[in-house]
């Protein structure tokens, strides 16, 4: 069953077609990469898939729900329940510790549970860094906290925006290994990346150009 299905999705700003007539589906448990040059529509597509923006036209089915016409509060609700977001710049809250950063996602979702947050950190190998502030962590460690935060509410879809963009080769390998493990456990993952090495470990790569899906390539 598809976890995500885009049908004729367009996002138009005045005369600019940021995304045009995009058709795409992601099966449950699939790991998909989205690639494309700057201005190709990757961020627009991420915003729409991540329920942070609405398309001008077309439909977006996320876990069986058409989110294309939902109001902002409804999108917030869907985002909270179904999406796990991972960012290139990590976006950790600087005055909270690693475990508290993970708990922030619990706080906005339902109830905080420190034990569960610690277990999430353990899954990314950071159980011994739980009490550290972001500035006391390396870039790779910050990204792993960001991944733990994305996983804490058991999202239907993990959406990662250039997750290795700010990492060195070693940490890139660690993060890809975590994604590989999550994929092995059945998580649905969409990764936006410029890095062909990241894309080739996924199941499938979608190439965007000028707001259109130019081609889709299977990596298996």
């Amino acid at each position, binding site marked *: 069953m598809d976890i995500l299905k885009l049908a004729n999705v367009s996002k138009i700003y005045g005369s600019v077609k940021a995304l045009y007539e995009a058709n795409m589906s992601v099966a449950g448990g699939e790991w998909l990469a989205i690639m494309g040059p700057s201005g190709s529509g990757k961020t627009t597509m991420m915003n729409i898939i991540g329920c*942070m923006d609405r398309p001008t036209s077309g439909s977006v089915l996320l876990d069986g729900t058409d989110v294309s016409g939902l109001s902002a509060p409804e999108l917030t609700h869907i985002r909270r329940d179904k999406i796990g977001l991972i960012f290139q710049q990590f*976006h950790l*809250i600087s*005055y909270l510790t690693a475990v508290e950063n993970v708990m922030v996602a619990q706080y906005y*979702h339902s109830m905080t549970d420190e034990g569960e947050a610690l277990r999430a950190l353990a899954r990314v190998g950071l159980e011994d860094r739980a009490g550290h502030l972001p500035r006391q962590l390396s870039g790779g460690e910050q990204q792993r906290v960001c991944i733990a935060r994305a996983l804490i509410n058991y999202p239907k879809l993990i959406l990662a925006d250039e997750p290795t963009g700010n990492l060195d080769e070693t940490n890139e390998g660690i993060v890809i290994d975590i994604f590989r493990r999550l994929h092995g456990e059945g998580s649905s993952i969409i990764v936006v990346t410029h890095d062909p090495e990241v894309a080739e470990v996924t199941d499938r790569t979608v190439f965007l150009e000028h707001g259109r899906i130019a081609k889709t390539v299977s990596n298996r």
Partner: protein
Amino acid sequence: MTNRRMYFKMIASSILRRKSRVTVALLAVALGAAVLLGLSAISRDIPRQMGREFRNYGANMVFAPAGDNAKLEIRDANRAAAAIPADSLIGMTPYRYETARINMQGYDIVGVDFARARKTSPFWRVDGKYPEAENEILLGADIADFTQLAPGAEMSMTGRAGDGSRYRGDMKVSGIVRTGGVEDGFIFLRLDDLERLAGNPGTADIVELSVAAGTDELNALVSRIGGDASGITPKLVRRVTQSETTALSKLRSLILLVSAVVLALTMICVATTMMTVVMERRKEIGLKKALGADNGGISMEFIGEGVLLGAAGGALGSVLGYFMSEAVSVNVFGRSIAMPWYFPALAVLASVAVTAVACLPPVRRATQVEPALVLRGE
């Protein structure tokens, strides 16, 4: 960690992280609270403080004879005055008016206890000294000018006693009284001397009272004494009480205006600071929204920060305000401030309310931040 603890952790950490910026807002709130508390305490205490100051302008209550009586009994007046709280009664002076002749010229003479008169009429200016010995008199300035008599001068005074007999006294001028009022046209002598010369001891035409109380309290006293006492009719000296009321009212209006301006400035400072904080934290707000925070949650966080700021600033301001009002009271009125226990609590509540209201525009701005912001790398 519960959600509530997480909430307090987030707002407290957020405030502590921006120490320098928040300190400015905190000081603004503290200053606002201090001025508000100080001025409120002074405003509330002014009738008590100024009441004694106003008493320099003379009596504000009189006891007149009841009904058609020409005189009143001083013991009735003493009995009626017992209704006035002892710490409010600054002074009480019976006055007895008669007529007498000096060098064939008729004058109004007034028998008075000068020690008491100095309390109820502290504005009298006396050249020479108050009468102390028997048959010493105080000449009103107009009479002194007319007769060209000076302190130390002696003269013979004649008059008719209450029983119809004539009396004669050899009097000596001890001083000249100058008030600019009706007193300048009277001759004052000790009440004992007048009673000895003219008879009818223990009576007076009027009794002046100086009472340290507000208009409402004075009116209540007049009603109570008028209902209870026999032989006297209590009255307020409207000219004095009205002047006091007007002065106090204007002073309070000024205090209110200053308080309103200070509160407005506090709100502007807090709103500006919080607006800057919101702008600095756009990415964090976007992140929280991306993680699922709704506008209500974001609003509660910023209002929570504002409330915390208001409570801390209000508490600090209450301490400052107490010492400020105490210093003003001691230096201006020479007395300690009387501040009710709940005033500081009200100042803290007012600070919290002001900061919460001041946070509303920044909160509105915060809710307009889009979650997509975090994906753009801005």
